[in-house]
């Protein structure tokens, strides 16, 4: 119990400091932070629409947090979740558009294909870091910028040509047989359940399987692992493959989830307008960091950030307020020293 508390307290401190800073921001713009937060939580949780939005955000946020933290456990930085989401999403869309299949199999194959291409993109950075000494931080960010125009290209010149769109290209309409099943009462797909299951699976994988164990060993003690015959390079690449696959899965979820029709274009346009930077890939990093890189923690911090994001949208505030807050929260999370020192919890290394 004490151990759990020690793990959770710094996250909560960082969250509170971030919310405080956000409140100051709102106050500076002449808004009453209490009213805003009330409206925000009410908007996210008080309406069916808000709740559905929370569930939709949640699936991406949790999966992208895992896409960041699993390679992180092996000591490699995957800042490329955003690009891997794009590639995964566009792959799923291509499969749906070009390869008609029987029901159930159709979305399943699309999802698997998305995982494969997402993993492939991440592996490029993994291989470059392990074997060419090129920092994955930089190459994953660069590949985000490659993945974005590339998937736009495919979207606007391959997919939109082939399928009907509605509302001035806002939506690409996919056959319902190709989409993920929706859950009752909400305007959301089963994706958020998958995300939670994957998070639990990731916890099990890291703690209980030999590969997960080797990943953690390489992250915490690369030299020790090497001297016992574990190859850190291979393990890092494998960790990136897993991370990329999960980001790809999130991408497929974005594209194939919708209550009515598949709003591929809407999804992507939203992201383009925002620039990839504020996108879900980066929210995923915030989710993972606040969760102190724990997969189960990522479920909870994922829910929290989804509420913030959905609520902000619902009250008509610009979602960028949330991003500014996320940035501040991340900076505070980067200072375990600060919260441990302030609260006198004793030095505890949280990263990896």
């Amino acid at each position, binding site marked *: 119990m004490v151990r759990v508390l020690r793990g959770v307290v710094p996250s909560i401190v960082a969250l509170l400091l971030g919310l405080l800073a956000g409140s100051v*921001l709102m106050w500076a*713009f002449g808004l009453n932070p209490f009213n805003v937060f009330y409206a925000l939580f009410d908007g996210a949780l008080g309406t069916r629409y808000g709740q559905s939005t929370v569930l939709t955000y949640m699936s991406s946020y949790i999966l992208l947090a895992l896409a960041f933290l699993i390679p992180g456990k092996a000591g490699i*930085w995957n*800042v490329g979740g955003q690009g891997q989401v794009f590639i995964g999403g566009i792959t799923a869309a291509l499969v749906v558009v070009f390869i008609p299949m029987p029901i159930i199999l159709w979305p399943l194959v699309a999802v698997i294909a998305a995982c494969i291409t997402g993993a492939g993109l991440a592996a*490029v950075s993994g291989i*470059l870091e392990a074997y*060419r*000494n*090129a*920092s994955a*931080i*930089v*190459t994953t*960010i*660069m*590949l*985000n*910028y*490659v993945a*974005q*125009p*590339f998937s*736009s*290209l495919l979207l*606007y*010149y391959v997919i939109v040509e082939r399928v009907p769109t509605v509302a001035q290209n806002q939506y690409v309409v996919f056959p319902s047989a190709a989409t993920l099943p929706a859950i009752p009462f909400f305007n959301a797909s089963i994706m958020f359940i998958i995300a939670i299951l994957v998070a639990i699976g990731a916890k099990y994988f890291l703690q209980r399987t030999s590969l997960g164990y080797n990943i953690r060993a390489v992250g915490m003690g690369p030299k020790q692992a090497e001297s016992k015959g574990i190859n850190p390079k291979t393990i890092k690449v494998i960790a990136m493959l897993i991370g990329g696959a999960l980001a790809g899965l999130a991408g497929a979820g974005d594209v194939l989830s919708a209550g009515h029709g598949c709003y591929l274009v809407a999804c992507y346009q939203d992201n383009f307008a*925002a*620039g990839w*930077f*504020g996108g879900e890939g*980066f929210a995923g*990093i*915030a989710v993972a*960091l606040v969760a102190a890189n724990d997969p189960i923690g990522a479920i909870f911090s994922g829910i929290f950030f989804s509420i913030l994001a959905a609520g902000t949208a619902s009250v008509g505030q*610009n979602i*960028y*307020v*949330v*991003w*500014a*807050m*996320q*940035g*501040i*929260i*991340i*900076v505070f*999370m*980067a*200072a375990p*020293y*600060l919260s441990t*020192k302030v609260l006198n919890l004793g030095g505890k290394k949280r*990263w990896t």
Partner: protein
Amino acid sequence: MVLLVVFGLQQAITISIAADGELITEKSGVLNIGIEGVMLLSAFSAAAVNFEVERFVGPSSPYIGLMGGMLTGVAANFIFSTLSAKIHVDQVIAGIGINIFAVGMTYVMSQKYFEIDGTPVSNSLPALFNVGGLSSSLTLKISPLMLVMFVLPFLVYLFLGKTKFGLHIRAVGENPKAAEAAGIKVVRTRILATSLGGALLGMAGSYLTIDFFNQFTPDITAGIGFIALAAVIAGGWNPAYTFGMSLLFGTSVGLIYVVSATGPLFYLITMFPYLITVVVLGIASKRLRPPSALALPYRKE
């Protein structure tokens, strides 16, 4: 071809000046992944200062905006390096945080602050001179900052190589223990070096709003900061090579404006500079050696 040189040089201004700033920072052992965010904040500040002065004081000089941008860069880097040096904030995580913060913050600010939808056109830096007749309709404006771009690598080289402070920066980035043993204050040197680098990041960010685009748009930096970061790495932490890399990357960004393509080609050209960067990093990194203490916090024993 001429067009490519023109646009390439203009793009290289931001990349090269930012890379020089990041180079000084990294030489002292501080890795600032937040370079993109710091530039974005500076770009916004430059426009905002300009806007504010116009509104309340009278005709503003873009140089005032430039000063504002540079000060923002200094402040941001000062806070960042103090956090990492004093309370051991993880440099990579904090850098990511700064980037996300900057995108959100500048977007909100540009909407609320300017109190109009969109962003105002600001006055731009006067051209030192214009080179005309390059093509039927185009004149190349030689911005004062282009001059800075060419001079700066020399200055950085001289600063790091010939001055006392430059020597200290290199020592603390490479072997902080040895530097401490020689009586150098490691933490202070790193904070000062990072703040100095911040001034250059600020200048690079400001160039976008007060000269190249003449206005602030959200996410105006669009990854240019990361390309500058890559230029430092691919340039092997050497001012001359970093400048060379900046020109290369700048030219590949400039391609977008030269081809002015529509349709599929547009997207291919948009991704080109980033692809080039990854390829160059993949080829160059194997043999490169970063400052040994890069991104490692220093703790006295």
